[in-house]
């Protein structure tokens, strides 16, 4: 019989509604095995942050259950809090205190002696390449350094599960790569379980060993990034339309061809799932020309996570992200 370790995180049918109308979660479920970086990928407003708030004992679900290493987050929040580190989207350090002071306070809150907290803080500063700035006020640090301090604070008490909510939002590309390297090391070298939420496709692709794609408050697909992409099979043909008004005619023309799967048009572009892109492309071009559709561009590509998202959520990631930003603003207003 295969040995199955106890899952680090289990979410079962989580539901949460703000006010009467904002359904943030609508039956969200996933399981995370220990020791990996697990990504919750979805556009703004999909329910990722709400999920993390529930798993970190900050918010209560209206329905469903969640456990961290087998401990129920609603019934035994105190025990869960000792197992987890949480780095929220907003900076969680004290800008007037130095980096060292921030870390030591965090360690002492979790019960470490002054000496142990200091030793741990010094080694974390070292590890995150922040030693030189450790005695300067954190408010004067660069954005990338501050984000690393936030992560280091979440690690002070040696948690078993670390929650990172949109860790690289707002960072410049170099700082983002830097933080990616650190996050990767946490699971590889420290055996930590990391749950990461992101709305960057390339971040999920690069960092996460496994992914759950979240849309409108539920998980629409799970797997490794490669599994998700190969499950789709085939290629994607993307056509940019010269006249957006041609969208319906273009879709009808492509859908009628043999070897074509789902076809979606959106924002002046057409995405078609096909078995073999190179084989279908010439007939697709001919069909479009016959239908009188003028093209701005056309390309064939291996499936990306964007295609995975498009396939399961029925709309492209960027489109959902734009719509979701507005929706999450209104749900934040309700929450506030």
């Amino acid at each position, binding site marked *: 019989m295969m040995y199955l370790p106890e899952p680090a995180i289990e979410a079962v049918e989580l539901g949460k509604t703000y006010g009467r109308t904002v359904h943030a979660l609508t039956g969200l479920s996933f399981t995370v095995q220990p020791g990996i970086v697990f990504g919750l990928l979805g556009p703004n407003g999909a329910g990722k942050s709400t999920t993390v708030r529930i798993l970190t004992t*900050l*918010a209560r679900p209206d329905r469903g259950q969640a456990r961290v290493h087998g401990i129920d987050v609603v019934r035994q929040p105190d025990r869960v809090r*000792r197992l987890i580190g949480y780095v929220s989207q907003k900076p*969680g350090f*004290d800008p007037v205190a130095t980096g060292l002071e921030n870390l030591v306070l965090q360690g*002492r809150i979790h019960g470490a002696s002054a000496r142990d907290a200091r030793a741990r803080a010094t080694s974390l500063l070292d590890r995150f390449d922040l030693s030189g700035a450790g005695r300067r006020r954190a408010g004067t640090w660069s954005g990338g350094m501050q984000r690393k301090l936030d992560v280091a604070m979440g690690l002070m008490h040696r948690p078993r599960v670390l929650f990172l909510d949109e860790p690289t939002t707002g960072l410049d590309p170099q700082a983002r790569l830097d933080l990616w390297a650190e996050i990767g090391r946490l699971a590889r070298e420290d055996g930590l379980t990391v749950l990461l939420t992101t709305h960057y496709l390339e971040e999920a692709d690069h960092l996460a060993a496994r992914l759950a794609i979240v849309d409108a408050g539920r998980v629409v697909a799970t797997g490794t990034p490669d599994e998700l992409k190969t499950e789709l099979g085939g290629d994607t043909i993307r056509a940019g339309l010269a006249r957006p008004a041609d969208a319906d005619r273009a879709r009808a023309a492509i859908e009628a061809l043999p070897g074509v799967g789902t076809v979606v048009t959106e924002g002046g572009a057409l995405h078609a799932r096909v078995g073999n892109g190179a084989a279908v492309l010439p007939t697709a071009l001919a069909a479009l020309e016959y239908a009188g559709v003028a093209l701005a561009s056309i390309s064939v590509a291996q499936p990306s996570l964007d295609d995975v998202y498009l396939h399961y959520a029925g709309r492209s990631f960027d489109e959902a992200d734009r719509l979701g930003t507005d929706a999450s603003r209104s749900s934040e207003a309700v*929450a*506030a």
Partner: protein
Amino acid sequence: MTAAITHARLLTGRSLRTLSRQPAYLLFTLVQPMVWLLLFGQLFRRIAELPGFGGDYLAYLTPGVVVMTAMMSAGWAGTAIVQDMERGVMDRTLTSPIKRPALVVAGLTHQALITIVQSLIMFGTGLAAGARYPGGSAGLLVVLLCAILIAMVFAGLSNAVALLVRQQEALIAVAQFLVLPLAFLSSIMIAPELMPGWVARVARFNPVDWAAVASREALRATPDWGLVFERVGLLAALALLMGWLAARAYRTYQRSL
């Protein structure tokens, strides 16, 4: 329990460190009470010629201004909470093992320490300006106790309002709305005998007046200790109620997340 005490101590330390690193704010916190005392002392100096002030207006005024200052600076206590909420500090705190009562106690302890320092500065200023306080050190201790209790009442209220409204502007509006009427509907500056009847009646229900009455009484040569204990008891009960309210407000805040 010991963990809660450690947490309260650590968080109080954090807030005092923050205060010590904002020199301009710290200076204002320390100088303002002196200004109040000397300003009102000068402005209303000739009032002491009326009956009810014992001839020494500065001595009459000192305990009242101590109480008023405690109330005013405690009214701002919630702004630190709003700041923590705007940053991720509150989220981090609420997902750590810190218990809610420890958060409340830390906030109130911070406020009590500031109040003690401010009060001692005002008594020093009063003595230097020639006021005399016959009640001596026992009287001074009672005044400090009253000031601490009134600071806890208003800090607790301010914290609770901060957690419910979550906005600096709204919190400040609430504080402003309360502070001046409560100061003027009391015997801080004017003897009870000289108040219009309706003000005197309202003042009986004003916690700021309870603190002012008990403080002045304790500084007399022969205080009516019954009166002092009664008002201090009322203040203590109200302070506990406000502390409880602040702890409840954390729960309400969290339920809305």
